[in-house]
């Protein structure tokens, strides 16, 4: 009996303890909890640079890093469950474009049009970019940086070995490109002509093929409904994709993008098509542009800038609205965009940032951004919604595994687009 009581008392005490722990202390200092998936490498350094600017501009606001690793899936899932539980951070990272719609339609982000007025941003960003964060005339996030997706990276030593002039790799059409891939294959069968990693990097390749084969206007038409995704033009483009995939490495499944870049650095691959977060990896391994690696627009897409942009939001019921506002001020400012993008390797979303101390690649990309035709990325949520992107990934994985033929792949692609 005595023991029973003792156990009961201990049990009650434990429950009480658990209850108090669950209540957690609520504080209301000047803070800004920012949720990003920038947790490693140049991205984490960029976030640190932003913290520095926050400290200068708003020394009274303490930065809280709510970062979660894993840009593709896990970070967004963590964010979604926090939003669903009404426990939002003060600001979170979201790709500008169709991906934003989920948050807007869920009523989880606030209209920032007033902040645009207050910070004087209405003319700071290109109109194409602002369209992607605007719904029904309301602006829902502030873009921080722009990446180019349609870039082809090349290993200079490998190209030299197989006898391709690395200054002549701006291919006007994909057929020209395929001729060189064939040349590499013939010269050295141990070299992968075109490297890929896991499924999403293959979808990334597919999007540049679609842009090249259909042209920017028809490519945009896929997403606004004016191009029939089941039509013969799209089918032909998917056929070209099939041909390109026959020049890729087979050990790609489940790998991240850096796996494909590494093959170039290790001299095992010649070309790779990936967004311009790639130079960070080259630089990290002391690879020098012009000696070890070079770049060109993805074959057939010269004059087009296939872009994706990160942006920051103000969630509904953000616990520290003042901190959030200070953070968005930093994101929007010329200083913030300069400090952040210089380290991250992307280009500022604002057009009025002085780029003289940016890297050679960044200056070239910024010049292209200013004059090229701009289209939104499929894989990176600028043009396609999460549901469309997911379904296209699924179709590509199935096609890659050999479980669907070209016409089945085309049908599944069309169904993925129309939903």
């Amino acid at each position, binding site marked *: *009996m*005595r*023991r*029973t*009581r*003792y*156990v*009961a*008392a*201990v*049990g009650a*005490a434990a429950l009480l303890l658990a209850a108090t722990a669950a209540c957690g202390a609520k504080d209301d200092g000047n803070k800004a909890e920012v949720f990003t998936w920038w947790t490693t490498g140049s991205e984490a350094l960029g976030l640190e640079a932003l913290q520095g600017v926050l400290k200068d501009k708003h020394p009274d606001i303490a930065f809280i890093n709510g970062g979660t690793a894993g840009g*593709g*899936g*896990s970070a*967004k*899932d963590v964010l*979604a469950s926090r*939003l*669903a539980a009404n426990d939002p951070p003060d600001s979170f990272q979201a790709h500008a474009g169709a991906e934003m719609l*989920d*948050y807007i*339609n*869920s*009523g*989880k982000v606030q209209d920032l049009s007033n902040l645009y007025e207050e910070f004087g941003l209405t003319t700071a960003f290109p109109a194409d970019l602002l369209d992607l964060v605007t719904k029904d005339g309301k602006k829902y996030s502030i873009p921080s940086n722009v990446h180019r997706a349609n870039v082809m990276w090349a290993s200079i030593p490998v190209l030299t070995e197989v006898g391709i002039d690395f200054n002549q790799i701006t291919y006007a059409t994909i057929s020209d490109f395929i001729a060189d891939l064939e040349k590499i294959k013939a010269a050295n*069968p*141990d070299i992968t002509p075109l490297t890929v990693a*896991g*499924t*999403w990097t293959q979808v990334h390749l597919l999007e540049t093929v679609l842009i090249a084969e259909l042209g920017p206007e028809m490519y945009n038409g896929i997403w606004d409904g004016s191009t029939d995704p089941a039509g013969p033009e799209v089918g032909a483009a998917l056929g070209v994709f099939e041909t390109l995939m026959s020049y890729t*490495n*087979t*050990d790609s*499944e*489940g*790998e991240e993008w850096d796996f494909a870049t590494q093959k170039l650095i290790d001299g*095992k691959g010649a070309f790779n098509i990936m967004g311009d977060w790639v130079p960070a990896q080259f630089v990290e391994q002391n690879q020098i542009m012009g000696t070890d690696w070079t770049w060109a627009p993805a074959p057939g897409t010269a004059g087009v800038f296939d872009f994706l942009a990160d942006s920051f939001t103000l969630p509904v019921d953000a616990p520290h609205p003042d901190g959030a506002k200070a953070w968005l001020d930093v994101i929007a400012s010329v200083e913030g965009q300069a400090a952040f993008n210089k380290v991250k390797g992307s280009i500022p979303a604002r057009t009025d940032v002085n780029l003289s101390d940016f890297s050679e690649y960044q200056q070239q990309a910024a010049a292209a951004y200013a004059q090229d035709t701009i289209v939104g990325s499929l894989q990176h949520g600028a043009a396609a919604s*999460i*549901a469309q*992107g*997911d379904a296209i*990934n*699924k179709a590509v*994985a*199935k096609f*890659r*595994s*050999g*479980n669907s033929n070209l016409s089945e792949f085309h049908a599944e692609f069309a169904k993925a687009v129309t939903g």
Partner: protein
Amino acid sequence: MTPVSETVTSAPPQAAPKPTPAPKRSKRKQWIKRNLPPILLISPSLILVGVFVYWLIFSSVGTSLTNNHTMPQVMGAEEVEFVGLENYANLLRDPDFLHSLRNLGLYTLVFLVGTMFFGFLWAWILEKRARFEGFFRSVLLFPMAVSSVAAGVVWRWLLSPTEGKNSSGLNRIFESLGLTGLENSWAQDSKWGILAVTIPAVWQLSGYVMALFLAGFRGIPNELREAARVDGANEWQLYRHVLFPQLSPVALSAVIIIGHMSLKVFDLIMAIAGKDAYQTMVPAIDVYNFISGRQDYANAAAVGVIMLLAVLVLIVPYLVHTAREDKR
């Protein structure tokens, strides 16, 4: 905690039960005295299991009957409607989901047969008084101690699909032995890739089945064997009519344990082939893919319920069987 113990110590001692038949009230008191402690002790686990297992199963079934397919619905910004069995009907008509089920069936079959075969073989060899039994027992059981993800990462490399000069892993071994005909794309084979994943699975759990069978062998009294021999049974007859019947409950347990683990396979495939690979897709990875990014709770719940039903098909007959045995 000290004050609590103080109170307990200073509580008046309870009256000892009387030897004579007690009046009704003290009978109830006695009942409480006898049963309250066990009820109190078991209630935390009952409540936890009730909430975190049964209530969640109930709520998953509920979600699977709705059209909760998008983030705005999950966030409560758009209506969620009851759609009955529509999600199940759509899933069971979807060739991709049927392909996942087919993969799961193949995987379960080969995994079961493989672990039972090797588990029994090893147990039989050790039972024959192999030397260094303790050593071999530990060595063969050890793969089970390795986490599936860690094992998967290693096997991912062993099962590398690259062939020829650049090959690695098993293909590299075949290449250097000149057995180039044995090189293959393993988990990336478009039709049979899922079977490559059963290799590490069998490697990992055969030792466990061996331990079960070894315990089974040890549980058979020597007298039975001697009696059979005296009756003139040869070795095969001894196994067929004396040892196998004694081992069948062990075999049944092994099938249930391995089978239900197999139906839930996730970690090994994620580590070896990743979440997108079509040729190794199984329902558990479908659940992950429905939730991740798309926030399609309804379909994820429906697949989860289908997996639960598959496990129940395996386990309920077993429970019925053991319940009957116990009664006997």
